């Protein structure tokens, strides 16, 4: 077990380093750099001026030296300064992160809350009405772009129920009711595709488990059917779900961008879009690093968890 953890840690560290290199190169290659931003379009660009600015920003050094300086800064917590607002990138991230965290957590919560029971019942009532309806919905949900779904939901709630979400953002700790009112629609929009995946996966996992011998044994022991299903079969089906948690988080990190754009939530998704429109690359870089690191860490945790649950994986 220990060796497995060590191997996964090393692999994850390599991946993280690789990601820093990719993000660094990506931003360097992007059109427009800090010198252009500072000088604007009216300043006359003389070679001396450019050379002086390059020396000041360390841009005259070879690329790999720049990378190490940059990496050193990052590891000490200095993610750079926004070119447009002159605020530290870290501060901008801290302001936006709670919104996205609340959005994705709520979406995950809804996904598991709805997806797992529907999947289980779907498996139990295989090929009956519930199952067929659930499968049709799942299939439709896979093709539903989340920003379109969001727009349709806003349309329905405002036209049919005359209900509008509150305008400004409050965290769930400040004002739970308003916060939930604000977040419920975006969370549903973000979570729908994953609900479909979870339903399908739970359904097929349950269908695989139910015929197995240990279920028969549990039943013959006299256990109530409810305990057999939820206690035993589901437990093993949940293992399959852990494998796709990484995928779901990855999807949500990307989907949060479009959903936040539709509902104008001041989260990380909107931050990265804004930074690209404004060509404020330190912010783009910061958001990319943060999200990718988070994603990689989640995958790492899932790998370890899966290694605990399924001993076969450890000898890979």
């Amino acid at each position, binding site marked *: 077990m220990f060796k497995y953890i060590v191997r996964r840690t090393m692999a994850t560290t390599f991946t993280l380093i690789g990601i820093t290199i*990719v993000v660094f190169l*990506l931003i360097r290659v992007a059109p427009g750099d800090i010198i252009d931003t500072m000088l604007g379009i009216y300043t006359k660009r003389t070679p001396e001026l450019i050379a002086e600015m390059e020396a000041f920003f360390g841009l005259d050094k070879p690329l790999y030296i720049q990378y190490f300086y940059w990496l050193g800064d990052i590891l000490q917590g200095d993610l750079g300064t926004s070119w447009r607002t002159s605020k530290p990138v870290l501060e901008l991230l801290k302001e936006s992160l709670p919104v996205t965290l609340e959005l994705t957590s709520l979406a995950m919560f809804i996904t598991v809350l709805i997806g797992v029971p529907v999947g289980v019942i779907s498996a139990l009532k295989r090929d009956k009405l519930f199952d067929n309806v659930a499968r049709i919905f799942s299939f439709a949900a896979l*093709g539903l*772009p989340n*920003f379109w779904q969001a*727009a349709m939901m806003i349309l329905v709630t405002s036209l049919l129920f005359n209900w509008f979400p509150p305008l400004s953002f409050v965290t769930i700790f400040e004002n739970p009711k308003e916060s939930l009112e604000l977040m419920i629609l975006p969370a549903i929009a973000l979570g729908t595709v994953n609900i479909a995946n979870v339903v399908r996966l739970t359904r097929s996992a349950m269908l695989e488990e139910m015929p197995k011998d240990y279920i028969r044994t549990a039943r013959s022991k006299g256990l109530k059917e409810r305990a057999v299903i939820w206690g035993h079969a589901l437990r093993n089906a949940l293992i399959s779900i852990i494998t796709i948690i990484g995928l779901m988080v990855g999807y949500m990190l*990307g989907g949060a*961008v479009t959903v936040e754009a539709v509902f104008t939530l001041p989260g990380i998704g909107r931050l990265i879009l804004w930074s690209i429109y404004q060509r404020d690359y330190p912010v783009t870089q910061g958001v*990319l690093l943060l999200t990718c690191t988070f*994603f990689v860490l989640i995958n790492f945790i899932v790998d370890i968890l899966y290694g605990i649950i399924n001993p076969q994986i450890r000898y890979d």
Partner: protein
Amino acid sequence: MMTAPDLLKAQEELLLDDMANRPARSWIADVFSEAIRSRLVVVGFVIMLIITLLAIFASHVAPYDPEEIIAAQRLSSPNKEHIFGTDHLGRDILSRVLYGVQTSLAVSLSSIFLGMFFGSILGLISGYIGGRFDNVMNRILDVFFGIPTLLFAIALSAVLGTGILNPIIAIAIINVPFFARLVRGPTLAEKAKQYILAARAIGADTSRIVFRYIFPNVIPIVIVQGTVSLSYAILIEASLGFVGLGVQPPTPSLGNMLNEGRTFLELAPWFSIFPGLAIMIMIMAFNLAGDGLRDALDPMMRGTR
């Protein structure tokens, strides 16, 4: 009562019989007939075909010029003249949706082909060379898998710019790791088989081995993943358009239209309903077709190999 080994033997004989007595057909025909077994898959294929035809002949089918501005008819609801209504500049939405579908398909197909091509080659090379090179390549692929797809697309758009060509490059780049990893697996598996060893023993050179022996085993998987990736590419192209990083107005793009329609959501819901519906139908059709192909190719690979 037959015992398990007897049952297996009987099944095997039936299968061999069937294979021997079947008229000779190309494997493509086989795959197709297998895929069409399910009625739902047929629906998927038919819709896919209709969409493709509509996209190719958009200029003939569209009733109006998608960029023609008729200010007097701004935001008119669906009526006899404009079946899907008009947008905020008086342009016919049906025509714009048709051209938008054309753009979506063009971008998705090109990017998937590019990604498929380079990704598969990378996977084949990496799998065949094996050893250290393969290990390093695997680690590099891990890095790219650690970046959430849509974020990667957005970041690449920041670097490459907007337009119609750049999303194609961006989506192609995103798909290269998928296909590389996909192809690497079977390549490694085939490489270990006896007939490859035999081919090498009689002096077949590397390119012949890779392209004539290993590659045909990889094609079915690549095609199936291709259809899945295609529907995902349509979604990404629409998402990029929605946030303004893809095809730029006035060129019609489904994502763009949804973005423009946001402001008029209550005034003119048709502006947002139809483009989104088009995206959804496209994705569902390609998913159905992809599912059918996958189910058809799987037993094929196991059964008649």
